[in-house]
């Protein structure tokens, strides 16, 4: 069992600590992406033109360097994203608890939030890397996308199952309310007749 107030304070602290690091990391990645796509790739393509200088492999080399830099930045961000998802899971678990939150529930929420965060991070990473993967081997971009879609479906399916208890409880509550409302209406109609 985890104390609710303690959990909320720890989650808040973690969010304050991790959000600025993620913002800085994404800003740097975006700047590198911008410089790569708008300046260095066109320059490499220009020099790679057989009619100008025929440096055919330069475009792939430049793409590979930018790809590695972006991957390093995203590896740096990864730990912070995991911390933030744990903090968000803590918030969510505490929101549905009165005084103490069961460990099992907290762990289930953390796994579910982590799944969603992994998918979001992978999609953002793919969007960042797409021009550079396509710059090295164009077919690889398509293969990575197919693998990403299959993996995202599996992760989101697992995440949905982790929330199934809450969804079932919520659906039962709604059904019960509708049922009682219908019974009330029927009783009122019977009295009027």
């Amino acid at each position, binding site marked *: 069992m985890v104390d609710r107030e303690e959990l909320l304070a720890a989650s808040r602290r973690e969010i304050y600590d991790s959000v*600025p*690091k993620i913002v*800085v990391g994404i800003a*740097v990645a975006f700047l590198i992406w911008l410089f790569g796509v708008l300046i*260095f790739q066109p*320059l*490499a393509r*220009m020099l790679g033109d057989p009619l100008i200088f025929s440096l055919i492999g*330069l475009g792939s080399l430049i793409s590979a360097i*930018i790809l590695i830099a972006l991957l390093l930045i995203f590896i740096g961000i990864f730990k912070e994203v995991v911390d933030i998802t744990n903090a968000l899971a803590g918030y969510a678990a505490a929101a549905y608890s009165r005084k103490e939150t069961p460990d099992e529930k907290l762990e289930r929420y953390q796994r579910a939030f982590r799944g969603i965060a992994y998918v979001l991070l992978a999609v953002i990473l793919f969007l960042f890397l797409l021009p550079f993967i396509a710059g090295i081997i164009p077919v690889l971009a398509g293969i990575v996308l197919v693998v990403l879609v299959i993996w995202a479906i599996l992760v989101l399916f697992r995440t949905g199952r982790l929330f199934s208890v809450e969804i079932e409880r919520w659906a039962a509550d709604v059904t019960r309310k509708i049922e009682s409302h219908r019974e009330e209406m029927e009783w009122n109609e019977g009295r009027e007749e």
Partner: protein
Amino acid sequence: MKRISIYLIFVAIWVAASAAVAAFPTILTPVAGVLNAPLNETIAVFLSLMLVLTIIFLALIGLEAGRSVAEHLQ
């Protein structure tokens, strides 16, 4: 803020050097002669070097910006 401006000037220098070499590749002929390498390879190495330097300086700008934001928040 002062450091960020200095880093930005450096980034501009690397980018301008890359653009100059792409526009006039023959300016690296003396360098290729000194390195005893073909001009093509010299240009490829130079452009890669400029790219790596740009990436490093952009990362430094990011770190500096993050530090100043953290100071501001405190």
